[in-house]
């Protein structure tokens, strides 16, 4: 008997205007690890909440261990545990106080408390932080504490809503160890994630796209049809991005993306009918077969047909070639009271380069980033952009900068047109009306010109935000977590635009904690705990930690290993 039965569940909001879940049906067995994957806004959280009996489905039913979520919600709350996206911790209470609160709420006996707390504090490695206020814990520690609170009494079903968002890779591994360990207690764990690679770890995965199930089943079954169709084009001697452009225009290729120095392609059919030469990668290049991953499957299923090259191609003037560094960070340090957020960070970015700051939340990359944009004044060190000092000539320097904040900071109450007009105004764009019209043209915003930014679909929001950021043709563009939570095709489109700009000579600096996105960069700076660990190309970083234990390292492996080495260096 399956533990969880979801039958034809539909959930809408706003009197039917917004469809969050569209006729979802599936079953979960005891002890299974289930992943629910999909980009933001597809209904993952709604599904989690409906399972937890916090929302009532418009039609259909969910039963957990025979209890219906609508009628028997009290009984359900005795056998499930739920960790919402925002932790659910009381930030004004200490670790121990939070544990006590949830223990009492879940009906733990006082005799049991001591032993349960001991084992959980060990499990989460929070023994030394019992008296610390939950609000003062790092992101990873908060998630671990949140998880501990859900495990105070062994539930039959554990529901985790995006448990690893923003967490540093080391903590993320520890969290996964904790989750896997639960299987031996026959606990069913259902977790949601926007990272398709995490979905591969589960026993069964549900891919949700636009509120409907795209796929539900074993990950391997999804990937098996792609077995011989995914390749890396290696040893490209010509321009990597040119090859990418050609590949995206090719009808035999479903999807293509930059991966380090290589280009990853997903072919329609197997390699036999594929001619590599037409992409002009250079004479030494070759195809290397690789294991397919979920993102590839996504494109395979989606089979989306719009393969456009970014129209920015034609629009932008190329910047004058210069070998000089366009962004220079020298000994950047930022101290807040007793806490050093960024410590002596130095790097430079050339024109036509994509540079990434990679690190978990709280590592100091946002702080460094803000100092580079002029949002924070460095305690020590300097930040120069396009040869203007941000300290001495901030206004001039900022005119050369384009900035796109996380979650697209658009003015939600204004229409797309009003947003464009505003940004072109404050950047003193010449020939304002023309510039705005061109952006509308380039990004196909015609239908959305008079619609409030809040109501735009996510993909168009991203386009609008990008348009606003580049209307003044900046030489350097700063992108803060630009594609977190978006679906893969939107992400591809975005990078298409970025690549077009890079080709013209602009410099791009991006921050991300999403390891895969870091692969698109020419060079990456690994930042952890305020320190710069290493700067190098993605491939070199991976090569640096290759060992017998890790024969095919990912960037995440590179990050973890290099951080460890850095720590050991410090302790010597």
């Amino acid at each position: 008997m399956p533990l969880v039965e979801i039958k034809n569940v539909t959930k809408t909001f706003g009197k039917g205007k917004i469809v969050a879940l569209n006729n979802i049906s599936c079953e979960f067995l005891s002890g299974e690890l289930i992943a629910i994957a999909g980009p933001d806004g597809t209904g993952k959280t709604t599904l989690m909440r409906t399972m937890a009996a916090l929302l009532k489905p418009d039609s259909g039913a969910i039963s957990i261990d025979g209890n219906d979520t609508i009628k028997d919600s009290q009984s359900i709350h005795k056998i499930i545990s739920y960790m919402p996206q925002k932790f659910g911790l009381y930030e004004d209470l200490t670790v121990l106080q939070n544990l006590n609160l949830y223990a009492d709420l879940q009906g733990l006996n006082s005799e049991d408390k001591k032993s349960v707390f001991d084992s959980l504090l060990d499990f989460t490695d929070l023994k030394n932080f019992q008296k610390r206020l939950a609000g003062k814990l790092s992101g990873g520690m908060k998630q671990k504490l949140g998880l501990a609170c859900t495990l105070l009494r062994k539930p039959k079903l554990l529901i985790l809503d995006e448990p690893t968002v923003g967490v540093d890779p080391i903590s993320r591994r520890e969290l996964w160890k904790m989750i896997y360990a639960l299987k031996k207690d026959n606990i069913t764990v259902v977790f949601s994630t926007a990272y398709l690679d995490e979905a591969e770890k589960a026993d069964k995965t549900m891919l949700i796209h636009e509120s409907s199930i795209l796929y539900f089943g074993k990950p391997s079954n999804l990937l098996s049809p792609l077995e011989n169709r995914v390749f890396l084009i290696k040893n490209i001697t010509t321009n990597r991005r040119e090859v990418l452009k050609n590949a995206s225009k090719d009808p035999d290729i479903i999807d293509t993306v930059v991966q380090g120095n290589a280009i990853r392609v997903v072919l329609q059919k197997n390699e036999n009918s594929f001619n590599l030469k037409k992409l002009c990668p250079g004479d030494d290049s070759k195809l290397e077969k690789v294991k397919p991953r979920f993102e590839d499957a996504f494109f395979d299923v989606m089979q989306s047909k719009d393969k456009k090259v970014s129209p920015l191609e034609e629009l932008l003037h190329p910047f004058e070639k210069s070998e000089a560094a366009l962004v220079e960070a020298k000994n950047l340090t930022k101290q807040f009271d007793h806490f050093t957020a960024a410590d002596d960070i130095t790097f430079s970015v050339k024109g036509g380069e994509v540079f990434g700051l990679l690190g978990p939340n709280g590592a100091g990359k946002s702080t460094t980033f803000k100092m580079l944009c002029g949002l924070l004044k460095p305690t020590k060190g300097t930040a120069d952009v396009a040869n203007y000092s941000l300290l001495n000539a901030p206004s001039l320097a900022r005119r050369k900068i384009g900035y796109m904040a996380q979650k697209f900071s658009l003015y939600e109450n204004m229409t797309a047109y009003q947003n464009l007009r505003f940004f072109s105004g404050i950047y003193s764009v010449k020939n304002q009306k023309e510039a705005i019209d061109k952006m509308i043209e380039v990004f196909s915003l015609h239908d959305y010109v008079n619609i409030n930014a809040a109501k735009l679909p996510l993909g168009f929001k991203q386009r609008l935000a990008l348009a606003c950021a580049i209307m003044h043709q900046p030489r350097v563009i700063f992108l803060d977590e630009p594609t977190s939570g978006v679906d893969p095709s939107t992400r591809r489109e975005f990078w298409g635009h970025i690549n077009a700009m890079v080709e013209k000579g602009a410099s791009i600096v991006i921050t991300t904690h999403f390891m895969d996105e870091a692969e698109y960069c020419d060079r990456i700076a690994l930042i952890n705990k305020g320190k710069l660990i290493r700067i190098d190309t993605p491939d070199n970083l991976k090569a640096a930690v290759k060992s017998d234990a890790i024969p095919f390292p990912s960037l995440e492996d590179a990050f973890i290993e290099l951080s460890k080495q850095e720590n050991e260096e410090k302790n010597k």
Partner: protein
Amino acid sequence: MFGKIYALIVKEFITILQDTKTRIVLISPPIIQLFIFAFAATLDVENVTIGVLNQDYGLQSSELIKRFEGSRTFSKVKFFNSHKQIQENIDNQKVLMVIHIDDNFSKNLLSHKKAKVQLLLDGRKSNSAQIVLGYASKIIDQYNSDLAKELGFKPADTIVIPRNWFNPNLIYKWFTVPGLVAILTLVITVVITSLSIARERELGTFEQLLVSPMKPIEILIGKTVPAIVLGMFEGTLILCAAIFIFRVPFTGSLLALYFSMFLFVLSIIGIGLFLSSICKTQQQALLSVFVFMSPAVIMSGFATPIENMPYIFQLSTIVNPLRYFIVIVRGIFLKELPFVEILKNIYPIALIAVFNLTLATWFFRKRIE
């Protein structure tokens, strides 16, 4: 530079007017306050219920009581039989005043002696009670002079001629509504200013502004101009309501009023900016405005006179621009306040404006860096 500021101003107007939260704040409190204050806030006393214990059987006492019954102020007169009833009714706040006439009343009057009438008033409402006492005294006076004439005595040969200047009928609304012009202008201006920056911080668009080539001073101007315009617009609205709906006479110079309003608005923008710089969310901003504005309003002379306050508190009102502006508004409405007096009240506002704006600008700059 002006292009940038213009773009920001346009954006501010659009977001303010289209943001539901701000719209609610702009519309509902002023309307509610205007009507509640205008209609409910009156220190007038009307529709009072009084009690009478008349132990006298003479004509004179019933004559006197009839006068009370006929008065507009005393809408209901209850007749009691015992002291116990008096006690009960006053204690239970059923009557505000009880007239107690003892059994010697008419006898004394007829024998040309003084007749005492006890007026028992509920001290819990001392202000209203005193006003009621005033009405009662007038009625008694009139009775006295009529009685004297009737009995052939020479009535008093002097008379007090009351003249209530500027507001002959002592209409309370003529006092509150002009005050409201000042108060609502204050509230709207501060709320808009403080919400504007807090909102951007909350939504994340503030960083976008800071990263742009706009200088801090330009951002400040861009944010304050809409607040000034909307604040003065609000002031104008209430002004029109005062003149056309509540029919408060307007005797002074409109120009002087607007000039003072402008300076007043400038003086309080600084406060809004300051609050905005320290509050991270709109809700915090709203709360701070509430907590800090309430005492300022209560102690501005709006409802209770400043000269009644202890000296220390009076001193504290020196830095309250509302105090001066209320004087100006009331003066211009009702008293055709001469220019000299207006000036005497404007220059403190101007000084406060300069001080506040400078401080707020400095603080804002510091915060940004």
